């Protein structure tokens, strides 16, 4: 395993800068959102240059979406950000709102929920607290996180008893329970049906606005990117082809003509016409 933000022991930084492991005082601290700075990132697999010359600055707390064709390197970029992989060249640094360097608490949600079928829903969320969390406290935090994704009543259910959308909400709760400063989303809604997807988008917007973490969403769905993100980046053959802010306030209306126009611009950038 590469060493990355993931491997950092989970700690809550209480006021006054003291690190408080799991003995979390009420109310729970809001996460310190992590800003990103990528400089000249290159990633090679053998002779294949998947990413090249990526320069990117993401202010702390921003929600960005990365779109592009399959194989454009967007998932690879995401794996670099959360330390699941290491870049071949270049530098990734993280900073807080004040620009001071930090080690972020980064979490990732995949397309598949990856729940442990032999743990009940709440214990799956407890996994998100990392190792060594005291049991009763962990369970309480898990139930809180489940309430945030509107699944409090399913705490004792088995994952196999949930629908696909509910499972993905559990995965989201598991990622959020440790109050990450950076949440990476790798096509998290890709396997859901259209209606469930819309309700999940609403949920994502809501938790992001409540908790204030930085979010990086990788998706092939341009409409989704435009609906959720402050800023959309088009990747093409490992390079940034288009990088546009979406100034519209949240929550956004579906079918907004200005958003639809933006969506068109991104689509033509991706398709290259």
């Amino acid at each position: 395993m590469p060493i990355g933000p993931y491997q950092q022991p989970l700690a809550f930084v209480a006021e006054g800068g003291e690190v408080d492991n799991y003995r979390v005082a009420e109310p729970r601290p809001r996460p310190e959102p992590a800003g990103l700075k990528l400089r000249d990132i290159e990633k090679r697999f053998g002779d294949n240059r998947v990413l090249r010359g990526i320069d990117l600055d993401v202010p702390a707390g921003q929600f960005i979406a990365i779109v592009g064709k399959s194989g454009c390197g967007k998932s690879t970029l995401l794996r670099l950000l959360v330390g699941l992989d290491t870049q071949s060249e270049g530098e990734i640094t993280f900073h807080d709102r004040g620009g001071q360097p930090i080690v972020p608490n980064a979490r990732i949600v995949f397309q598949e929920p990856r729940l442990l079928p032999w743990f009940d829903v709440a214990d799956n969320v407890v996994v998100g607290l990392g190792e060594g969390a005291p049991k009763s406290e962990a369970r309480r935090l898990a139930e809180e996180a489940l309430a945030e994704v509107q699944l409090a009543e399913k705490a004792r259910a088995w994952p196999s008893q949930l629908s696909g959308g509910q499972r993905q909400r559990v995965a989201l709760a598991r990622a959020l329970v440790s109050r990450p400063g950076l949440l990476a989303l790798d096509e998290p809604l890709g396997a859901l049906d259209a209606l469930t997807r819309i309700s999940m988008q609403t949920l994502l917007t809501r938790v992001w606005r409540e908790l204030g973490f930085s979010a990086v969403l990788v998706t092939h769905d341009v409409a989704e990117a435009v609906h959720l993100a402050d800023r959309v980046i088009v990747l093409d053959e490992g390079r940034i082809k288009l990088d546009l802010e979406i100034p519209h306030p949240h929550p956004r209306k579906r079918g907004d003509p200005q958003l639809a126009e933006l969506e068109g611009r991104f689509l033509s950038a991706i398709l290259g016409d």
Partner: protein
Amino acid sequence: MTTVDILEARHPVRGVKRRQVSLPSISRQHYMPYLLPLAIVLLWQLASSAGWISDRIMPSPLKVVAAFSEVAASGQLAHDVAVSGARALSGLLIGGSIGFLLGIANGVSKLSEQLTDTTLQMLRTIPHLAMIPLVILWFGIGEEAKLFLTSLGVLFPVYLNTYHGVRNVDRDLIEMGRIYGMSGWSLFRKVIFPGALPSIFVGLRYALGIMWLTLIVSESIAASSGIGHMANTAREFMMTDVVVLSLVIYAVLGKLADVIARALERWALSWNAAYQG
């Protein structure tokens, strides 16, 4: 939330429907499996009473029951069952533990797998009962011989299924576990072992069958107590009823072991949709 609500609203309706249909079928589930054995016993009794089958060849069920109460009254039966049961269990425990540990080690560690898997696969192909002459030369007809054979027989199915189970744990779940800081023992306890458990149970149930088989054979060949010994002694005195009784006892014990294993399986795998309800 529209879709979720629709799904949830439909659930109770489905539940009620299922309950209405399944109420009579639950009791049917319970008696159906025993209809055939019961019919066979009845037919058997009928054939014996009518004189179609000689008592020397096959005693009637009633005679077997009589033999049962006779042997049971003398205390011999309880003793023999206890002795056989203890042999079976200790063989299962020893062989099963070795197979389980090797399966885990080889599933988790590449080095261990390279060192031992080929050897185990070679040993596996020898029918373990073919070792009886050698085992008698080594251990005589003492307890060690039976323990050795039973352990050996049980080891391979447990090994193979444990190894296979560990190897087939979802890689995505393991990656997820590592992402959330699991490693070593906690990764094993929370992800690998529970993931391998369904396969381990298959191995256990298979091993139970081999356990009885080995025990029966080794007790018939060389033993001074146990059910196999009881049957063998009865053969010398032409007591067909006791011979048949011992077969029935083996069948009952085998079924009992399987029922216990299945109950254990249901309990341990209650998370798995295949074992729910």
